[in-house]
Structures are given as C-alpha cells and as structure tokens.
C-alpha cells in the first residue's frame, strides 16, 4: 500500500521526535564523556586540560564511590523485594470479593501520586522524627526508646520511604494482570481439587510472570536514580552512609565543582544503567511481539 509519497510523509512526521531525542541523547552524553577526561573546575580555570583516565582513578579510589555503588544496589534490590512480594500479596488480597473495593484501590494507589520531596518530608517529620514522629509516639506508648531513624539507620529509613512510594505501582500492575486471569481456568482448577497454594503456584504465578517482569524492569530504571528522597532526608549522610551513585555525582558536580570526577561517575552510572537496560529492552521487546 505504502507509496513513495506516504513513506516520505511518514519520515517527515517522525523527524521532530527522532531528531529531538537524538540531540537530547547524544549532545549531553558526549559532553559528559569529554569532561570525564578533563581537569575542569569552573572556579579555577587555570588548571584545565586533558588528564586521561585519572578522573576515573580518583573517583574509584574515593572511599565514597564503592559505598555509593553498594548503597545504590542495596536500595534497588531491597525495594524490589519488598514491592514485588508485597505487591503480589496485596493484589491477591484486593482481588478477593469485598465491600468497598474501589475505595481500597484508591487508598492503596495514592502514595504513587505523591511527589518525592513531599513523600520524603512527610516520612521524615511526621512519621520517623525521633521526637515528634508517629513512630516515636508508638515507641513511647510501649515504653521503648524512640529510634533515631535517619541518624542510626539511614538506608533502612530511605528504603522504607521509597518502598512506600513504589508498592502502589507494583500492586496496581499486578492486580490488573490478576484480574485478566480467566475465571473459567480458575474454576476448573478448583473443581479438580487444587488448593489455594497449588492454584497460586501453577496457575496464578505463571500468569502474572509477564507483569512481574515489567514491574521489576520499570522500577529498576527509576530506583537506580533515586535522588530527591535522599536530598530531603539525610543529604547522603551521616558521612556517606546513605549516598547513592546519583547523589555522589550531584555532590561532586554542583557542590564540590569537581566536574571531571563527577563526569567519570556519570559515565559509570550510564554503564550501570545500560546493563539493566539491555535486559529491560529484551523483555519489553518480547512483549511487543505478542
């Protein structure tokens, strides 16, 4: 059907999107790569120049670097575990017949729409504050000593906040998938005498596998770049205890003006994201064919 004319028209219509995204992807990345081999300090332009791989060496020898990689991975893996397992359980629960299902859904999905700085501030001050927070009130009620969450367990605190933001997303996607499960299949399995557990393992879980994959991949993209939650609560501290890779790069670039090192960190972040993206693309690509 496609004539030469419609084909060139199609190209013309696609051009703005493609060109914009191409520029958006190539120009800043090329600059970052270039800066990563340079000594560059906006406050001290006398010492600029090509320095080879030494920015990478400096970034690597910085004790904060390994800590930040570790924190990034701990954050991603913990939040994934909590949200996927919690999401499956919650989806199974909400899928049961009940009164007020619509309102339950709305209540559960709500945290996803709360902007990250608000989520972080609310948890920091209203819930986890060692003196005025609800957790402290509860601890005192039971005669226990309130916990200084951000001083003593900064990563745990951030994991709880981020998991609270993403649990709704996992639940909503998994619930949508669960509700598309064929009712007849379920009934057949029940009539064959399959119990709840075996129905879950042999029927429900395989049916949800695609949704689970999508949840893991999409959350990983966003979790690799958690930023505002750390900025608002701990500012990466105490020390580097809750600094992840994005936060370290931000500190180097805009607080210490070590542009070369920050860019080297940025390149590492891109490599990390690409490893994840490689798997993400394959999974999403497969789903496209169906």
């Amino acid at each position, binding site marked *: 059907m496609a004539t030469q004319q*419609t*084909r060139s*028209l*199609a*190209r013309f*219509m*696609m051009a*703005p*999107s493609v060109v914009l*995204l191409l520029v*958006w*992807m190539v120009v800043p990345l090329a*600059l*970052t790569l270039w800066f990563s081999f340079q000594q560059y300090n906006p406050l001290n332009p006398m010492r600029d120049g090509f320095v080879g791989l030494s920015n990478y060496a400096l970034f690597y020898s910085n004790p904060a670097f390994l800590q930040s990689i570790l924190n990034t991975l701990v954050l991603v893996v913990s939040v994934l575990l909590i949200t996927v397992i919690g999401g499956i359980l919650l989806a199974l629960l*909400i899928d*049961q*017949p009940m*009164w*007020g299902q619509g309102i*339950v859904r709305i*209540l559960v999905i*709500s945290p*996803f729409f709360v*902007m990250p*700085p608000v989520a972080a501030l*609310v948890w*920091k001050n*209203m*819930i986890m504050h060692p003196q*005025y927070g609800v957790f402290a*009130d509860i601890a005192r009620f039971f005669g226990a000593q309130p916990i200084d969450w951000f001083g003593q367990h900064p990563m745990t605190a951030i994991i709880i906040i981020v998991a609270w933001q993403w*649990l*709704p997303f996992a639940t*909503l*996607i998994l619930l*949508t*998938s669960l509700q598309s499960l064929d*009712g007849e299949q379920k*009934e057949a399995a*029940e009539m064959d005498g399959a119990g709840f557990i075996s129905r879950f393992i042999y029927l429900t879980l395989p049916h949800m596998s695609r949704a689970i994959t999508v949840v893991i991949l*999409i959350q990983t*993209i966003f979790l690799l*770049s958690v*930023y*505002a939650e750390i900025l*608002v*609560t701990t500012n990466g501290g105490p020390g580097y205890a809750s600094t992840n890779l994005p936060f370290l*790069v*931000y500190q180097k670039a805009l607080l210490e003006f070590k542009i070369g090192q*920050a860019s080297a960190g*940025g390149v590492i*972040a*891109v490599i990390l*994201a*690409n490893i994840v*993206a490689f798997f*993400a*693309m394959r999974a*999403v690509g497969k*789903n496209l064919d169906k």
Partner: protein
Amino acid sequence: MARAVTTQHKTIATVAAWIVALLIFFPILYTIITSFKSEQEAIQGFNLIPSGTFESYAEVQAQSGYFKFFLNSVLLSVGSTILALLVAIPAAWSMAFSPTKRTKDILMWMLSTKMMPAVAVLFPIYLIFRNLGLLDSRIGLMVMLMLINLPIVVWMLYTYFREIPGEILEAARMDGASLWNEIIYVLTPMAVPGIASTMLLNIILAWNEAFWTIRLTTTDAAPLTAFISSFSSPQGLFWAKLSAASTLAIAPILIMGWFSQKQLVRGLTFGAVK
C-alpha cells in the same frame, strides 16, 4: 456457574484489605489531618482530631507565596505535555498507520533514551542551560520535561493509535478525503480518548518530576517540587505549615491520579499490561 462466596470470606477479606489500605494511606491522611491543626497541637503527640483551623494554609501563602509555585507547576506540567503531544502525535500516527521494518527499532530506541540516568548529564545540561540563559526559566524547564517524557508519550499514543482500525482510513481515502480532512474528521475523533489519557498521565509525571525541576530552578520558574524541598531546611520545620504545604502540593495530582489508574498501568508498562 458463579463461584459461591460466603459472607464470612467476604467479611474477612474486607476487614483485612481495609486495614492494609488505611495503613498505606496513613502518612497522607495524617498529613491532611495535621494541616488543620495549630502548630502547638501538631507537636503534642499523636492526635487524629484537629481543631480545624485554616491558619497554616493562610500562613503558607502569606510567608512563601504558595500560589506562585503552584502556578509554575501547572504551567510546566501542562505546557510540557502539550509540547510533547505536538511533537509525538505525528510520529505515533505515522508509526501506527504506515509502519516500516524499522518502526519497532525506533520505538525501542526511544524507550532506551528514558534509561539514561539524569544525573549523568547533569553538568552538561547545567552548562548548556547557563550559556543559553535558560536557568530558572519556565521555557527551558518545559523543554526539558517535554524531552524526558517524550518517549512515554510516543509509546502511549502509538499503543492507542494502533487500535484504530486502518480500514476506516482507507475507506475515507477511497471517498476522496484529503490527508488533512482524514486527520481532522476521521482520525481525531477516534484518537481523542487516547490523547486525553496520555495527557493525563504525562501531566502527573511532569508535576512530580523532582530532579530537573529542583536543580535547574531557583525562584522564578520553581514549581512545587522545589518549593517543598526548601522546607527541608531547619527554619522550615513547622509541622502544621509543612503539612498544609504538602497537602496543597499533592491534592490536585492525587485526585487526577485516582481517575487515571487504568492509563497509568498502560502508559508505564508500554502497553505490555492492560
């Protein structure tokens, strides 16, 4: 044969689900409640019944000019979404109705740009914005938000447009409709629901974007994300005012979000889960 559901089963499920749902919603609920307390009440320990004062809301506006930030959030999220739609609709239209062998690759590539960590390009973007005089400008940030959401907009529109039967377009063409008429009278009415859903989801995403909106603004273009982040400094620690500011920042998008649950699933899973 309908499955027999005992009342007992339903009661247990209802109670369990409501308890869990209220626990998850609690931080939001408690913030709303605290926003109607006085500052003294707010730090006097756990209390679910506020005195019902509006003074925190008045003070948030009086001290920090809340509505300026609110207006910026509206302008940025709606503006960037409209920009993205203008660029994405032709692209998604051509991909859905005249796909080529490379269409899928282009879509995948677009998605891959979404995976670039923002922080990796923070400094180059900062430099470019500074040299172009775009720091703290609404236009600059609007373009930025348009770019980061463009892949999702193209994808969402594509999955919606693909469901419009191509035969209808061919029939219109046979009847001698020009391309322009085809777009205006045939395609647009069928595409409106999809475009509206895409718009809704992207306003939500742009409203809540909290990296570029914080880093590339100072005062003039600062939206609510930047406004709220400024409360993390010590002098901002007034519980009732913080709660009022938070409630104001999330209320509009929370309500929009409730209406867009289905679009959210579809948009954020790139059509893989419907």
